[in-house]
């Protein structure tokens, strides 16, 4: 029996599934927005603002979900501050520790960007739009983008840094979640800008398609790296079917197909986006719960 089968389940269930999903979207969306801000055109701004509007609430929800998942939620601050000495608690080799700081950082930058975006559309004093413009904006975008990428990807690294079946039997999970976060972030942006057809949208569509291809490649490598000794008990069952149908078919292949063959007319893009989101969600469900079921 593989060594990972002598372990106990941490019972990271639905709170964590949603956190990983939403955190991935938020991180991905911010990263996309940052790309558009740093390297795009002024015309890309509306979409990037949309990304900020997604990212900040996403970070708040992420934090809440994470706290709700704690068995002692009132002690969530122990992640950041040592309860005995009140000094900062940071262990770079503990993904949860790093993740907590990462989420905090992401929350901070996405908040700045959120404020900046509100300023851009006139809901807040115009001066605050400097948070996402100019050199200050560049700093916010670079750091926020990096922490967004981090948020999307560390969740997989966290799972791999255990001794659980599947999770710890591969080192590709972080990458997979990162890619998936990016694609679902893009999908949500596409969905929310339903009906528009701008270069930014086309860029997003294109990007999402290639990201999905990359996701499929990473998923295949991941499964191959896990090996059948682990796959048999973990995924050679209903979970595996869900992975194939829900993620590979519905969440990846069909959206790619729709990209090249827009058979649904005006509904093609949003449909594909919805499917990508569904697939991204199912990916988290399968990756977390199939291991939990062992």
């Amino acid at each position, binding site marked *: *029996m593989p*060594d*990972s*089968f*002598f*372990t*106990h389940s*941490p*019972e*990271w269930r639905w709170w964590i599934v949603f956190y990983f999903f939403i955190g991935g979207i938020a991180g991905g969306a911010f*990263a*996309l927005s940052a*790309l558009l801000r740093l*390297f795009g*055109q002024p015309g890309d701004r509306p979409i990037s603002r949309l990304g900020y509007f997604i990212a900040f609430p996403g970070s708040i929800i992420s934090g809440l979900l994470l706290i709700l*998942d*704690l*068995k*002692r939620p009132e*002690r*969530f601050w*122990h*992640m950041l501050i*040592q*309860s*005995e000495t009140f000094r900062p*608690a940071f*262990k770079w*080799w*503990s*993904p*949860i520790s790093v993740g*907590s700081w990462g989420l905090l950082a992401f929350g901070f930058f996405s908040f700045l960007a959120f404020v900046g975006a509100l300023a851009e559309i006139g809901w807040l004093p115009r001066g605050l739009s400097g948070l996402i413009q100019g050199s200050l904006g560049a700093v916010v975008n670079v750091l926020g983008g990096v922490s967004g*990428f981090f948020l999307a*990807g*560390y969740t*997989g*690294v*966290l799972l*791999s*840094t*255990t*001794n659980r079946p599947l*999770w*710890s039997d591969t*080192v*590709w999970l*972080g*990458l997979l979640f*990162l*890619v998936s976060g990016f694609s679902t972030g893009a999908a949500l942006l596409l969905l929310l800008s339903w009906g528009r057809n*701008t*270069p930014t949208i086309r*860029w997003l569509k*294109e*990007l999402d398609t*290639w*990201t999905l291809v*990359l996701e499929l490649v*990473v998923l295949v490598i991941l499964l191959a790296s896990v090996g059948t000794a682990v796959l048999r008990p973990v995924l050679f069952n209903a979970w595996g079917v869900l992975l194939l149908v829900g993620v590979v078919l519905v969440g990846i292949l069909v959206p790619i197909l729709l990209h090249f063959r827009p058979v649904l007319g005006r509904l093609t893009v949003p449909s594909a986006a919805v499917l990508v989101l569904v697939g991204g969600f199912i990916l988290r469900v399968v990756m977390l719960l199939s291991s939990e079921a062992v």
Partner: protein
Amino acid sequence: MAEPMGFFTDTSVCIGCKACEVACKAWNQLPARNGGKVQLSGISYDNTVSLSGIQWRHVKFIEDFAPDRSTGRWLMMSDVCKHCVQAACLEVCPTGAIIRTEFDTVVIQQDVCNGCRACIAACPFGVIEINPETNTAMKCTLCYDRLQAGMVPACAQACPTHSIQFGPISELRQRAQERLEQLHAAGVTQARLYGHDESILGGLNAFYLLLDEPEKYGLPSNPQLPSRNLAPSAALSAAGAVALGLLGLVGLRKQRMDRLAAEERGQGEGSHAG
């Protein structure tokens, strides 16, 4: 700093009486599962089933008989936290709740733990779980309170057959070696030690004498630290992030090229509206 202390569990003399389980619960005031009202597991005489937040000692029963009963053994083993020298739980704990004590044992500080369960997923032996009464992660403390008072841990004191031996690690290792040699001399060639040296997680401060493969007892043959995956996993993710960024940039560049090309063609229709 006191000398490293630990358990040597000699399964060859374990009679499966479960005194260790109850003595542990009595001393640490741990509740029975569901108030004691549980169902028969059907797994030999094991009804506590596994280590958990309220089960810090657990006796395993393995019935190993040939169909014609020409050979037959009933293996028993009292399982416990291994108090690894390289402890996975301690490594991943984000709050600092898990500490290494002056006895080289690993203890979860109950007033610090916030129940994130990283340690549960990290432990290669399935030792830790949440105690439903405190909602914190719990496991054997090697009776830290008793150790500080110079007392023997409750389970080791209760164990009637010296299957659970407590003492300084150096002494226990020597005793284990002697016992192993005694058993080998008596023809019990299957006997082996598990976790007595640095080969497993730098050494287990609760190590075992087994009468068969570790897997037979539900022990991983080659347990590792979770951090083995950290660097490669993080590196791949970082590379992925760079790749995705580049993918985006390529797209943006292509977009710009397209626009420039369009402008060159003199078609000024603004496509950026909205």
